[in-house]
């Protein structure tokens, strides 16, 4: 658990379940112009995975379809991680990339708006602002790679779909060292199944790393009344 060692969780107090009276309108207090359209699934609130997923597998439990060179790189990462947990790029407190941030064993606050979905991760106070308007940048050498890439979202029926691209290659896809390159494209799908459960799927496409696109799945459960703690990861700090 190198991450948990590196991260100083500043707020350790357990917060009692919200004592706020159950308002008849869950959107009370939110400006009308910003509320999601009626009928939009309500993902608002704090969510977490019921159990950490440290090694990504395909939806049917197989190993990801790594190309030979990527397989060698993966073995190297795993050996390095075994020898020294600090070889994990997250030890540098860099942003963890996508989907690894989604798989971090800390909660996420989802704040929905008409035009955006904001994902605020407890992990090192990292956030993603996902536009629901069309506008994913064009991939290619002109796009400056970012830690969390560039994202655009949309509702596909009752499923929130987020497409991302333009990542740098300094992050791992999971905690076990699964590599990727800059051609990585990620599609996340969030489907509300009942008020307290989201079924998620992540499809990973990276022709330099995998022989074909592949999909992995996860579950998020709601944590009613939970408030995000201040989590701070700073490398070699002297304060």
């Amino acid at each position: 658990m190198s991450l948990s060692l590196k991260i100083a969780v500043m707020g350790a107090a357990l917060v009692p379940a919200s004592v706020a009276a159950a308002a008849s309108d869950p959107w009370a207090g939110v400006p009308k112009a910003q509320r999601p359209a009626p009928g939009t699934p309500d993902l608002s609130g704090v969510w977490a995975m019921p159990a950490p997923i440290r090694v990504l597998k395909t939806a049917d439990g197989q190993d990801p379809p790594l190309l030979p060179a990527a397989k060698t790189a993966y073995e190297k990462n795993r050996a390095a991680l075994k020898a020294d947990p600090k070889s994990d790029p997250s030890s540098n407190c860099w942003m963890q990339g996508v989907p690894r941030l989604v798989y971090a064993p800390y909660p996420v606050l989802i704040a929905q708006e008409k035009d955006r979905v904001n994902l605020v991760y407890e992990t090192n106070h990292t956030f993603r602002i996902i536009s629901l308007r069309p506008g994913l940048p064009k991939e290619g050498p002109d796009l400056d790679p970012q830690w969390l890439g560039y994202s655009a979202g949309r509702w596909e029926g009752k499923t929130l779909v987020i497409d991302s691209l333009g990542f740098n290659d300094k992050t791992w896809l999971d905690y076990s060292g699964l590599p990727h390159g800059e051609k990585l494209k990620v599609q996340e799908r969030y489907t509300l199944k009942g008020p307290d459960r989201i079924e998620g799927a992540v499809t990973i496409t990276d022709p330099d790393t995998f022989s074909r696109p592949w999909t992995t799945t996860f579950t998020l459960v709601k944590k009613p009344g939970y408030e995000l703690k201040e989590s701070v990861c700073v490398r070699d700090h002297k304060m």
Partner: protein
Amino acid sequence: MTRSLIWATTTLMALSFAAAAAAQAPKPGTPAPEARDSLGAGADRQLARRKSWEPMPPPSDPRDFTGIWEVPNPKIDLKQDDGKDPPFKPDEAKSTQRMIDAEKAGNVITDASTQCFPHGVPRLTFAPYPIRFVHAPGKILMLHEVGHNVRVIYMDKKTPPKGTPMSFLGYAVGHWDGNTLVVETTHLNERTRLDMHTSHGPKLKVTERWTKQKTAQGYTDLVDVITVDDPDHFERPFSVTRRFAFRGDLEATEGAEGVTEYSCEENNRNVPSADGIVTTEVKGASR
């Protein structure tokens, strides 16, 4: 593009902001904030700039702060509206002066933010980067570009929960007073400074009053009147004001909704001494 290069210059920018602030401190008798706008003096010359910032106006609802706001004339200082220094207690006056002197001697002053920790409050509000306001059920979020700082303002609570720990950004509860968002922040740890020079203690309470205000030219500012109350460092509470311009133009930023990725951790090279001073001396270099 990540903002690491910009970050690298933040500390030096802070130096020049401080110098600029000293030169431009408003004289006593300056009109009340209502008569000014976020561009301050010389606003006429900057109207074109302002026009480009508001390709579309912000929401008309005075209680809807949704969107991106940025302080056009950043000043990382604690000058009150009349230009006066805060009412320091003697020890704090000495401590603040020591930091100012160290800076004048050519040293780079650091604080929590320059080491990639969250900035603290109100230090974060002074930072020259965009802030996105998000209204959510029971809370208002302030998503800061700088160092991906996140402030959560709990609108469904009157006081922090029992046992709330101290933290860099504290615990913030909010309520509406008319069309003014009142945010009270406490539980701020002592590892941050209020600006680049002035310290605070555990009793710090920061009250912000955020109000949308039309400028004389019809643009919209978000005005934050910040009251600092820390009886261990100041003789009495005092207020500073910051005015933010609406930056609708930044929403066009592809894939980021106007908040560019900012990875402080990519450039974390200036390690301060125990008292927060980084010397700029480079071994073997001639200056």
